[in-house]
């Protein structure tokens, strides 16, 4: 997070009458890995393509490594090939008419590097993705995972200032995706390259990023570290889209005007203690509670709930066994709540239970 490598200010991208990106501002620091996360159509890919120079914005500025590459005011738009960036495409875009070596060497050859330099850099890049043995193979004969690695090697071979990823793992099967996640994170740390990553997979975003930018309908909802986004969602959209959360309607109690613990009257008359990350205005009407942060106790087992500040009685309506966790749907005075517990905590459908959660896990939403 030292000096800023990418600065985006008030970026607007229009397609005819449709505003795909509406006033996005964002800074990415040197060596930082930032992920744009959001549902399809939220403008994340368009933002990435605007950084790459593949999409022409209609307003704002983009600076890469201190140089203005796009500015509506200055009428400047540096073409993609002159931005010193690199990109891994969703479809990999591995050229089928070239060998693996030629694919990876492309960016180096464009820059007219001497032959031996090209050879060593390609080898280095292929080593990094463990594809050295495939150098002479025709790119048309690679599997999906191998193409992914070649695309990655090609993107890093010419040591770009900035690396962009457009949903690079979305075409892989689940198992391979999980493996590549680990490798990508590792590679990104080793190279220390500044990168912007686009995905709609919240799990992926949380796992591999230094910071996550949650986007919705062309704008930014929230920027923060993965833990911050998960634990302190600011909006209903973030709470709902990232991880799984219960949204409880009600009204914040008057009086509090500083961040901290506030009272919250849930619809149905129940009083809760919540945590406000911002100075409450008195008009907030939602709190969010992560499904993983709610404890369940039967009246019989009545144990650990003791220290929790918020307690709600309810009845288990449905139990879904997921393997890694069990999901309970619980009818309660504040509405239906979803609770995820480890598979060791088994309760019967229809059982009367007490739900409890700490006030720091009951987050007052800004809007």
């Amino acid at each position, binding site marked *: 997070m030292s000096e800023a490598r990418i600065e985006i200010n008030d970026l607007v991208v229009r397609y005819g009458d449709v505003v795909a990106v509406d006033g996005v501002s964002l800074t990415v620091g040197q060596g930082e890995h930032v992920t744009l996360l959001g549902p399809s159509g939220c403008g994340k890919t368009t933002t990435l393509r605007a950084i790459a120079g593949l999409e022409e914005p209609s307003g704002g500025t983009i600076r890469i490594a201190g*140089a203005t590459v796009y500015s509506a005011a200055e*009428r400047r738009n*540096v*073409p993609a*090939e002159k931005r010193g960036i690199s990109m891994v495409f969703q479809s990999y875009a591995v050229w089928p008419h070239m060998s693996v070596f030629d694919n990876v060497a492309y*960016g*180096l050859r464009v*820059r007219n590097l001497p032959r031996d330099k090209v050879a060593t850099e390609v080898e280095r890049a292929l080593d990094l993705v463990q594809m050295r043995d495939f150098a002479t193979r025709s790119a048309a004969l690679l599997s999906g995972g191998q193409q992914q690695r070649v695309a990655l090697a090609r993107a890093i071979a010419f040591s*770009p*200032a900035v690396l962009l990823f457009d949903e690079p793992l979305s075409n892989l099967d689940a198992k391979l995706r999980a493996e590549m996640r680990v490798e990508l994170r590792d590679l990104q740390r080793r190279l220390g390259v500044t990168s912007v990553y686009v995905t709609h997979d919240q799990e992926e975003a949380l796992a591999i990023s230094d910071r996550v930018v949650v986007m919705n309908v062309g704008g930014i909802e929230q920027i923060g570290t993965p833990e911050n986004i998960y634990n302190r969602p600011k909006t209903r959209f973030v709470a709902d889209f990232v991880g799984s959360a219960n949204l409880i309607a009600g009204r914040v109690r008057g009086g509090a005007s500083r961040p901290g613990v506030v009272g919250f009257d849930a619809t149905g008359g129940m009083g809760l203690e919540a945590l406000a990350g911002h100075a409450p205005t008195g008009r907030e009407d939602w709190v969010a509670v992560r499904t993983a942060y709610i404890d369940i106790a039967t009246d019989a087992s009545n144990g650990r709930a003791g220290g929790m500040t918020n307690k709600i009685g309810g009845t288990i309506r449905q139990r879904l066994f997921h393997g890694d966790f069990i999901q309970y749907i619980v009818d309660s005075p504040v509405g239906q709540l979803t609770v995820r517990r480890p598979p060791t905590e088994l309760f019967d459908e229809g059982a009367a239970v007490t739900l409890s959660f700490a006030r720091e896990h009951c987050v007052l939403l800004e809007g």
Partner: protein
Amino acid sequence: MTDIARNRSLSAHSPESRWLPSSQGIVTGAILLFCGGLVAYPLVYLVAESLNTSGEDVFPPAAIGLSNYADLIDDWHVLANTAFVACLATVMAIVIGFLAAWTLTRTKLPGRPQLERLMELPYYMTPLVGALAWSILAAPRTGFVNQVWHGLGGGGDLVDIYSPFGIAWVMALFEGTVAFVMISAAMKSMDPALEESARVMGAGKWRTMLTVTLPLVMPGVLGAAVFVFAEMLGSFAAAFVLGLPARYVVITTAIWQAVQSFPPDYPRASALGIALFAVMFATLGFYRLIIRRGNFATITGKAFRPRTMAMGRLAWVLFAACVAYIVVAVVLPVATLLLTSCQRFATVILSQSQFTLANYQTAFGFGAVRSALTNSLVLGVGVATVGVPVMTVLVWIIYRSRAPGHGLVEYVVMFPQAVPRMVFGLALLWAWLNIPIPIYGTLWLLALAYFTVLLPLGMRTLAGVVLQIDKSLEECARVCGASWFYQLRTVTMPLLRPGIVAAWLLVFIASVRELGVSIFLVGPNAKVIAPSIVSAWLSSSSELSAALALIQTVAIFIAVIVLFRATRRYSQERA
């Protein structure tokens, strides 16, 4: 680690703007101007001439009026003939095309892939060659079929090809392939799950066919019918060879007669031409509408492997029908031409025939004929070699560029498709007669004309390949630091190579067989083969014209074989 990138890329942070004319923008503008001029300029002359009521052939006309159009009413029988023949031929072509398409996409048939390839062959027989062959085969009295009939003791004529039915028959044999290709494309793009779900819901084979298959394929069939109808309206060769002996005149032959009469009646020809153009334009507009409307479930852009049905013994009947079509449309005409061209007088009674190679000696030895052959080959190679790279850039601009005006380029370059060849030839004739640049009567004008009228063909072929190339393959090159031209050279062109080869061959083939435009533009020093076949036919030497037609067909078929090889290798590489 960023030093390489910094060396190269950051030096480029000099101000650079897309608002300044980019290389793409300049190229787009130049192309719009050039192609727009090529297409629009002759048509302006044609419209002006059609309004010319002064009785003198000057430009601009001394007096302007609509009387030429009013006179079209006197030609009502010509219009009626045109409509009648076009309808008849369309119906026949669609029947052929539909049956063949259904047979070859939906039934289990022995040798299906080979048969599918062979079904394309009739398209490469030109209507002129087909008409010549069929007139030798089925002319009253002298036709081979009637000769045999008389030989067997039959009275009168068994068949008479010099009739509207004859014209429609020859045209339908030719256009049947077009219908086949279009309809089978529609059938292949239908998700078999749509039919399977009908079956699962309990509908039988025939009920599924009637309630699901037919309604989904209908837009494709209708589109093919309208497209074929438009082509029929503008077709010349069959009506010329088979209609004129029976004094059966359609619009295109009426135009030809008006120009050939003495003195030439250009205003009448122009008015007829503009009228034909208007009808064809409207028909093709209707076609586009159907294609767009019909887009609903069937066409997802994805090709499916349709489920095929086992037909039992019926399979052999269908197989025989497909083979019969190829025999009637290709084998029989070629055999007829071969036999005729090797005889002094055309006859099928072999005991009477005098075999000779004199016709081929004339073809290769006689100056005018030989130069026509050479010119056609030179033009074919030249237009394809110069034209296809230009078309490639055009296609790229239409589908990939974001330079202003790229959408307009498509309308301009596809426009010649809506102009009947005859009419465009007439327009070019009139336009270049009236301009001081001395290229009328030279090969240069022919080359320019071929390039213009073949633009849509080349563009369509290339577009099919461009659209298959994932856009990010090109974007990735840009991101890696390649300029537009570098990207075109290293990524786009190599990926397009199969399409470029196919387009080159198709443009070559189309040039070598071109008739409608050429017939007005050939001069004493610029003869090409198709009009020479027509002249040989007019001077009533069916033997020499058969020899010429066969030479043309052989040249085309050699190109077709190369084309099939090239595209097959391509599809194998892709598989």
